[in-house]
């Protein structure tokens, strides 16, 4: 029991931190432009594919450096030449634009790389068990994932709160006109934040690609969960996104590892149903089965009872 719990916690931590790398960029972009970027997970997927292609010739580590840079430049271009143009048509048009961009990126990836799963592998140097607990191994690569995402979180937090550029960004979020009047180029800041946000997503893709498999549907797998996180955490709140990422990661991990279900609950209540009961599926459902829908259930509940999210302030 204890070993299941510890490994579920570790795996949940890995997933949660990975989700945070996506959610942090998404929530930053939202607080700047008020736009939920539907294509965010697509940039994550692009990161994995670029890193795969680079790793074929130059190895994993150069991919780790260059793939996020390429994705960030691409993201900045999308903002500069696409999103900025649509901005004048209103928020719905912007949202629909990012939705279309997500669609197009997925199709482009199928065009350039094909629909098959890519054999993108973690580096051999990290191919050893970091430690062995209760006879189960915890791979060094997962430890590396935890290390990278923690490092990103700390750097991002320091930059945003303690550096000059971070303070300008924060000011541009709340008072864009004042910041512009002070002589800062606000559109450039927007483009930069969009680029950095998408680069972070790309980095998440680079390190997640080998573990979560690199295939054209990988954006769709994480895309809506990342939305769930930024909404639950509170739109625009970085700390909220961090808490919600860990919450969702752990929740899913525990639900998958657990073995309880409706039959146990019914036993506890002393109720039983015939196997041919019309709602038989409901009476036999188990927690691991419904693990994929838990985040969405949480999302709907949060939106009904606390539309601003856990730490959000923005009221529409």
């Amino acid at each position: 029991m204890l070993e299941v719990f510890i490994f579920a916690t570790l795996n949940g931590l890995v997933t949660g931190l990975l989700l945070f790398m996506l959610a942090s960029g998404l929530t930053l972009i939202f607080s700047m432009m008020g736009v939920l970027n539907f294509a965010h997970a697509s940039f994550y997927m692009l990161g994995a594919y670029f890193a795969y292609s680079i790793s074929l010739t130059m190895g994993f580590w150069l991919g780790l450096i260059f793939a996020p840079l390429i994705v960030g430049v691409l993201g900045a271009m999308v903002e500069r030449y696409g999103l900025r143009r649509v901005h004048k048509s209103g928020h719905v048009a912007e949202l629909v634009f990012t939705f279309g961009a997500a669609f197009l990126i997925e199709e482009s990836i199928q065009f350039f790389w094909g629909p098959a799963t890519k054999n993108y592998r973690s580096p051999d140097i990290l191919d050893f068990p970091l430690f062995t607990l209760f006879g189960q191994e915890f791979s060094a690569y997962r430890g590396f994932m935890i290390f990278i995402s923690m490092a990103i979180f700390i750097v991002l937090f320091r930059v945003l709160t303690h550096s000059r550029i971070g303070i300008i960004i924060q000011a541009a979020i709340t008072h864009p006109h004042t910041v512009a009047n002070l002589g800062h180029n606000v559109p450039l800041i927007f483009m930069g934040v969009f680029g950095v946000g998408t680069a972070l997503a790309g980095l998440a893709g680079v390190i997640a690609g080998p573990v979560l498999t690199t295939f054209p549907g990988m954006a769709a797998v994480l895309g809506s969960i990342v939305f769930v996180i930024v909404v639950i955490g509170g739109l625009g709140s970085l700390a909220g996104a961090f808490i919600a990422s860990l919450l969702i990661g752990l929740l899913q991990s525990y639900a998958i590892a657990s073995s309880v279900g409706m039959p146990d609950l019914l036993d506890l209540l002393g109720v039983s149903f015939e196997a041919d009961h019309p709602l038989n599926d409901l009476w036999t459902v188990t927690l691991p089965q419904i693990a994929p829908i838990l985040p969405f259930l949480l999302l709907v509940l949060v939106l009904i009872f606390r539309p601003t999210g856990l730490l959000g302030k923005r009221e529409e």
Partner: protein
Amino acid sequence: MMASIAKLSLWAGYLLVLLALPQFFDSILSISIFNQMAIAIIFALSYNMLLGQGGMLSFGHAVYFGLGGFLAVHTLILIENGSVYFSIIFIPLVGGIFGLLAAIFIGSFSTRKAGTVFAMISLGIGELIAASSLIFVSFFGGEAGVSGDRTFGPLFFGVDFAQDLEIYYLAAIWVFIATVFMYLFTQTPAGRMANAVRDNPERAEFIGYSARRVRFISFCASGLFAGIAGGLFALNYEFITEENLNAATSGRVLLMAYIGGLGYFIGPIIGAVVLTLMNSLLSNYSELWLLYLGVLFLLTVMFLPRGFAGLIMMHQVAWLRGTLRRLALPYLITGIPAFIFILASIAMIELSHTDGEVFHYLGVSLERGSSIDWMLIGGIAIAAFLATRKSLQQLKDAWEDANTLPGDEDS
């Protein structure tokens, strides 16, 4: 008086076109495309009730379509078993009623706010239902879905609806009825208030309307018609799967309504027709058609924020002033190089993706390995692009010319 006659003849023409279509295109393929169009038109119009008229961006509209469809198939099974006895022409209504019930339940909490909150709730509900459809197998049938048979139940004046053509006439009638009712809805106080709440919910509240209530009414009506479309889908295909209520279907209806034009009642109809045609015809020629669709969608969002219908309506002023003719030549001057550019780009995309060494395109054989061929198409594409760009100014001038009266310039 004149206006109402014009309107009535417009509707009569619509009905006539719907009923006459199979007379001109009677192949099995075209009938199946018309059936898809009929379903898409109702679905896209119902989506426009939300987004275009009510200002509610939904990412989970397929839920009402799919749930309506599932219940319709289950009703078909009940008819087959003899548990209930009525003609299958009412199956779309069954789907509609279930879509309405689902919308009443979900709308009771999701319409409290518009904007991002509504969009996110719709996304969450959509994912929730799509994911649970794989868990509750007895109702949704898992990945295989559920299937029925539409040939049971009492005959409708001797018609048993075994043929697709018979289903088309049934679908045409349903499309007409649904279109009329959705149009009439826009004319009711509820429909008008939906526009008001979309544009300025605060003001609508000040004059005594509950924005939430107005949104709720639009939402329910939209769920009803989405369910009707789902029921029609069930009748046409006689099966339905989880795919019909997941995010991909929700995305497709958004695409249809947006490309067609959200601001106009006719917009989603145009979008549904164009996208269904692209879907069925283009997919025969190229496996990359989704790529083209994505490009078309992004270009529409960027350059035609009001969609195809908006593009047509832009010419209204020139039409009324009788200056539309002056635009024909400038359109040709810009249009021909633009068309060549598109053709050359498609040639390059297809050539780089072709399986064999030789690619046949518009009567020309292009070789994948030949750099001369590549340079030739590339050269044509660049030249056509530059020519298009250069010709834009004359089009702009002609546009100004056609839209200003001789007296206007001085003032």
